């Protein structure tokens, strides 16, 4: 670089001046643009918030707070809920993909820990061909054993108030709605499976056919229309309870009033919204 002040039309002072001015103009421009974008977003937001009918006519999601109850004492393990869920939501039929599933805890006499049969393990269940072409049902493998106790535990997404799966999503494809349901935007999901790993309850699965994560939505398309989730609708035994915590007369409010409930893994601070009755300390 030439050091001669005659040949170089720009000296240090003028360069700094110019640089400062450019930076100032650039920053103002970016700020102005950002302000514009934010303004546009805000106007869209007020538009959307202004319509109380979101997301369906007559439904205001700020007025609801959904919660789910499971009474394990009543569950008969008929798996009608699982089949209904798969049919309602198009979940793959094989025994590796579930939005909701049922586990069986069996305490044999003289054994310290329970034997856990999970529907998610094809070896733990028997085919019946009753409702499905390839259905599942619990077999009677303990018929000749002495049982201390045994019970079924329906499992599903806990729709945590502080969901770890939402926290880890790198693209904002999963979120918690204002009525308390954790949803997945499958058009936006990139299929990285962080959320599947992050869920402490194993409630998420990866749908290989679609290349996206999937999980229970509490049948969001049903509850926003005033229906119950499919699994609650078909439960013959009253083991599954669903309702609005804002309504003191709803099934779930009564369920929480009448029972002493617990949640799964309270120690990890996820604040689940699925409340259990009648499960044992070994149920996680």
């Amino acid at each position, binding site marked *: 670089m030439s050091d001669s002040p005659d040949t170089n039309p*720009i000296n240090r002072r003028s360069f700094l001046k110019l640089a400062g001015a450019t930076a100032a103009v650039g920053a103002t421009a970016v700020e102005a643009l950002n302000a514009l974008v934010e303004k546009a977003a805000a106007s869209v937001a007020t538009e959307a918030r202004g319509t109380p009918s979101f997301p369906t006519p007559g439904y205001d999601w700020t007025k609801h707070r959904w919660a789910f109850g499971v009474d394990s004492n009543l569950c008969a393990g008929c798996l009608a809920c699982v089949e209904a869920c798969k049919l309602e939501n*198009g979940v793959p039929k094989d025994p590796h993909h579930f939005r909701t599933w049922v586990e069986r*805890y069996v305490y044999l006499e003289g054994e310290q820990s329970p034997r856990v049969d999970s529907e998610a393990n094809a070896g733990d269940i028997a085919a019946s061909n009753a409702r499905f072409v390839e259905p599942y049902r619990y077999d009677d493998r303990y018929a000749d054993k002495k049982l201390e106790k045994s019970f079924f535990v329906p499992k599903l997404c806990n729709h945590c108030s502080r969901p770890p799966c939402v926290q880890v999503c790198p693209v904002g494809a999963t979120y918690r709605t204002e009525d308390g349901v954790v949803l997945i935007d499958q058009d*936006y999901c990139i299929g990285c499976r962080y959320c599947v790993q992050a869920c402490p309850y194993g409630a998420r699965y990866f749908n290989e056919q679609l290349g996206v994560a999937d999980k229970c939505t509490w049948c969001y*398309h049903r509850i926003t229309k005033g229906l119950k989730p499919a699994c609650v609708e*078909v439960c013959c*035994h*009253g083991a599954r309870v669903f309702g609005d915590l804002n309504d003191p007369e709803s099934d779930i409010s009564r369920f929480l009033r009448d029972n002493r409930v617990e949640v799964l893994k309270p120690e990890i601070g996820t604040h689940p919204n699925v409340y259990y009755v009648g499960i044992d300390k070994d149920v996680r």
Partner: protein
Amino acid sequence: MPKHVVRLLVLLAAFAVIAIAAKIYFVPRSYWVYGDYRAKSVSEIASDAPMYRGSKYCQSCHHREFSEWSTGVHRIMRMDGRRVGVICEDCHGPAGRHPLVGKPPLVAKDTHERLMDARYNLVTGKMRVPKNSLALCPQCHQKIAGRPAMMPQVVMSVHAGKQQCIACHNPHTPGIVFPAVAKEMLAGLPATGKAASTQCAACHGASGTSISPAFPNLAGQHRAYLVAALEDYKTGKRKSAIMNAVAKPLKKRDISNLAAYFASLPRQTPTTPEVTASTDARKAQEEACQNCHGGNGVSQFASVPDLAGQKEAYLANALNAYHTGARRESLMSRVAHYLTTTDIKELAAYYAHLSAAAKTPLPRHAEVRPNER
């Protein structure tokens, strides 16, 4: 300003413009409306069509099945503030878009695989009718580890062996309780019925014993059954060119009176000797028919017809109609489904020549224990 500095500045400015434009272009418009997600996706998810429609949806067409179900133990009740009960779609699968008329209206969720899947009723529009009750009922009622004691459970192999559950239990109202017949239907005046019966006598005979083997005897038949039959002919649920035309103008009162009259007539005893059915038909008779129609063809249920001494051709026609689905009744359709042509022929002959006069009704189901817990 030297050229290279200007170039650098232009490049930086261009980069900034491209980056900002790309951000505006690629971030969906509804992003950040409610939070760091696409607000539109909420309504997209919420707009899916429900597949499970609830039992009320079925009621609008399937009145009879619904009334059977809603009075039985599978009905929906409230227990401790909770909804308990088996809904139609538990066994029949989701109603989806059943009954489907024309082409299905497709939604985004209808993948090819889903469309090809008959369970969604998208292509056929048909509901599932479970064929094998021995596989369906144990889903809830087989005794296995983990099932709560309050649930009625049986060990299937001990309870009834390989017998189909529906041989004794109507799946819509599985306790052994047969559809109660409304009281007003039972009322009726035989004398008034006799005066109105001249038209009937042309085919069914003046004494209720018919003139042709294809027409059933009516004398001594159960009143409630006759009422139900005439009602079905009137509404067209049961089809017969002659009977539909005859029953159409009848009022409820006329039907009660006619039924009361024919029920009061003495049953004709067949003059021919009894015939013995082959082993298969005999087995069907023992395992299925006599549970409702009685051991000697005389039923003890008001809504179930007597078969002893009935016309042979009529019985065969009726069984064939049940078998092919031309005539439908929840229990009979299921029973007849398993019969072969030979079985039907032999059963018809057996009952036509059976004399009911000497024997008393012998219901087999009285020996069946309702529920082994």
